[in-house]
């Protein structure tokens, strides 16, 4: 999941570039002073502690809960236990998807992202292993390829293939599937704990005395900080993180399976297709953007976020971007329509496709604002 500039933004830049330059008028151009002041320390501290670190702590906690829920399945015949494990999977999915708005640093460098969220999974190898006589202990599975572990492998085992429904009877859950699930959940729990520790205890797994990654964000520009050279660098990281996931949702997660027409739509490319959790995933991605922008979770007390940085330059822009984020979330959620249609069905439905297009348009509009209006503010900012 990597940052990509859209062709839209690039054409805007090209267009602007074409306006300057070759005129023969020697008079010095009048450059409007768009500079603005903003003290960023409180915003960076707040965003780090109360959005990013709290989010990963929540993920670790829900990883533990998911492991516990799968353990309950080992000998269970109660459908409620499977339902609880499915709910625990969805609960863990929430902080993970919201965290994709700041998917930089250790989630990438410790390879936790591919370990947890590789897609698509390898159902052929998965089935081969389920049919084999190998043991499913966590250490062994950590050495296996990423496409037979993580969120989506657990999803497949918990919810079934998702083609006609997202329900599965506990009786359908084989003994081998249960054993595999527990081992997968243990691996998952370990990685989420490792990620949480890296942000809160030490960013270097070999050096317990190294700074937590959170401190590297909060203390940029010091001589020992080889990660962030300035507060500007941190804000640039955060804005680019927002752009990255908006691009990913609009131009990847939704656009790829959506295709150019109903005949080219491809449900096999739908993320979280087994659980029918796709729309929740997508909206959580953009809710994660809102968390970073607002500086707090929805319903929490007002804290500083990137909205305050933007507002220091342009209050109207700050409000507009906030509205565009909200609108994108609502438009994604609206894809389900009045019949609570899952995404994988919506892309094969005439009215559903219209709603998908509306959501894509809202995401494109938001992305253009972030790239063309918000990111350039960095060059106008007078840090103090």
């Amino acid at each position: 999941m990597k940052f990509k500039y859209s062709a839209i933004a690039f054409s805007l830049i090209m267009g602007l570039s074409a306006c300057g330059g070759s005129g023969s008028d020697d008079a010095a151009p009048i450059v409007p002073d768009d500079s603005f002041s903003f003290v960023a320390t409180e915003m960076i501290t707040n965003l780090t502690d109360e959005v990013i670190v709290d989010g990963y702590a929540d993920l670790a906690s829900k990883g533990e809960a998911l492991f516990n829920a799968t353990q309950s399945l080992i000998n269970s015949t109660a459908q409620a236990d499977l339902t609880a494990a499915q709910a625990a999977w969805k609960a863990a999915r929430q902080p993970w998807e919201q965290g994709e708005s700041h998917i930089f640093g250790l989630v990438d460098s410790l390879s936790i992202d591919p370990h947890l969220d590789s897609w698509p999974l390898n159902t052929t190898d998965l089935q081969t292993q389920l049919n084999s006589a190998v043991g499913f202990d966590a250490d062994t599975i950590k050495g296996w390829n990423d496409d037979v572990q993580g969120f989506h492998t657990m999803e497949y085992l918990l919810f079934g293939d998702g083609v006609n429904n997202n329900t599965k009877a506990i009786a359908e859950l084989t003994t081998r599937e249960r054993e595999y699930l527990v081992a997968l959940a243990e691996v998952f729990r370990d990685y989420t704990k490792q990620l949480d520790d890296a942000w809160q205890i030490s960013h270097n797994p070999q050096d317990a005395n190294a700074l937590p990654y959170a401190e590297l964000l909060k203390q940029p520009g010091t001589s020992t900080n080889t990660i962030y050279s300035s507060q500007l660098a941190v804000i640039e990281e955060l804005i680019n993180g927002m752009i990255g996931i908006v691009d990913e949702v609009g131009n990847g997660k939704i656009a790829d399976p959506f295709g150019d027409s109903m005949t080219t739509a491809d449900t096999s490319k739908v993320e979280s297709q087994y659980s029918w959790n796709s729309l929740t995933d997508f909206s959580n991605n953009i809710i994660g953007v809102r968390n970073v922008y607002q500086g707090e979770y929805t319903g929490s007390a007002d804290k500083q976020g990137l909205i305050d940085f933007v507002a220091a330059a342009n209050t109207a822009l700050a409000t507009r971007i906030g509205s565009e984020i909200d609108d994108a979330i609502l438009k994604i959620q609206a894809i389900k329509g009045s019949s609570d249609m899952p995404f994988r069905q919506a892309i094969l439905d005439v009215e559903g496709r219209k709603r998908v297009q509306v959501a894509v348009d809202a995401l494109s509009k938001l992305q253009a604002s972030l790239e063309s209006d918000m990111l350039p503010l960095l060059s106008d900012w007078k840090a103090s």
Partner: protein
Amino acid sequence: MMKITLKLYGLISVMMTATILVGCGGSGEETATETIPEPPVITYPSYTDIIASGGDTTTFDASNSGHGFSTPAPNLTAAELALHLEGDVNFETSFTTAPNSEHPELDGLGPVFNNADCNSCHQRDGRNSTPFLAANETRVKLGSAAGIFLRISKAPDEVCTEGTAQNNYCAPVTVPDFGDQLFHRGVLKARPDWQQNAFVGQADVYLSYQRSEITYADGKTVTLKKPLFDVENPYDAPGETKQSANVTSNLLQDDVLMGWRNGMPVFGLGLLEAIPEADILANVDVNDADGDGVSGRANWVFDAVKARDGVAPPVSLGRFGWKANTPSVRVQSLGALRGDIGVTNPLFPDESIAGTSLHDDYLTRTGFVDTGSDENGEPEADAAFSDSVTFYAETLAVPARRNIGNSNVRQGARLFEQLNCTGCHTPTFTTKTAGDIGGEPMSDSLKGQTIYPFSDMLLHDMGEGLADGRPDFLASGNEWRTRPLWGIGLTQTVNPQAGFLHDGRAATLEEAILWHGGEAKKSQQGFMALTQNERDQVVAFLMSL
């Protein structure tokens, strides 16, 4: 080297004021006019104030953050940008085991490989993560998180000095039944004993570290770590190790040479390929005629593009890879696609392990479902995929420099020059204005650019400490290509777990400098003789790049 001379106007002002004050005091007797000394002149290298390291391809919007290596050159045309973005998606494409009827475009991983996508070895288009050992471990087994792997070859009978068709142009001698790269990962059924060794490739590879200390004159010590490897459980002799009583594996023979290789940053590569060959060769100084202790040799390597096109001899100047063993971005990219990932492509249509008993057995046992060709007999990755990935690597922007006005950065630039780091890390070149790269017409975006890569693109003996003892075309076991330094200050912003040097052994730039030996020993010693403050200034300069 052109210098910029700056007068210290502040100092002049102070001195003039002092003279006036002196003139006001005293006995009133006329005194002899004092001679105002010439103010000291401090010179800075011309590159001190350069921001746009990649000329017009430089990116400014992401040059402080973890996206600094991942943005397209801003001077691409709309059509080029579209191709670049297509390559961007493909760079992250994770391939799957063949056959994949649902997604045949993802089909073709392995059957043995080092990673399943480009990005895993070039995280965010930078370096891979350095493997770490948990507190209770003495060594770590390489798995899906590792971006490092081993190159392997047999020790040659004699030093190869001139490539010919007969000696395979001095290419490394492959290890029988293995090849020239060790693939520690595999698809589920890669090995005959896959039920006991699921997802294992040609062998298990373990990494550990040997630590040592180096002490400055002021008493400060730095701990260095050197990666060591153990290779065990080869597919041709399961369970065997070098310590086994009777070593039978081809891989574990004493004359098999092995050397670590890390993934490199991917940005700015098209510019490096566009440096005129003559300008690189102008810095060759095999016998150190200028007496600065630094030589510089060119590596001449097999060029698969020339071979494909029937050009004789199929040899070009090596520019890429840790030993300059690769002539172009195209050969590098598609060679890695076939090698590191195991995905055949138009330039390399055969599996990297074709003809080995591992591959023959795999094909027989699995019913010939993964032959390295698709159902039409074409390679696993098509021309469009291959072209876009190559173009992507050619046209990623170079990040702009940071903090160039900082006095420590500026002083560091002076010290960098003073230590003759530029003896190998040549600051600047101008790219050619016409011609091909990788056998294809070059993008206009790369033409005529004044660039600051800080590399002469040549081989240098870096001493025993860094040596892997493994020749690669004309490069000896002690020689390495000068690493371009542009963007190096963003390395750990892009990937906090990244290390420096060919195997990631250096956790900091200071450690990387301290590992410099051989031709670079004099510069390294000069660095060690600096004060702590001056050493920090050198690092500050590097961090600005």
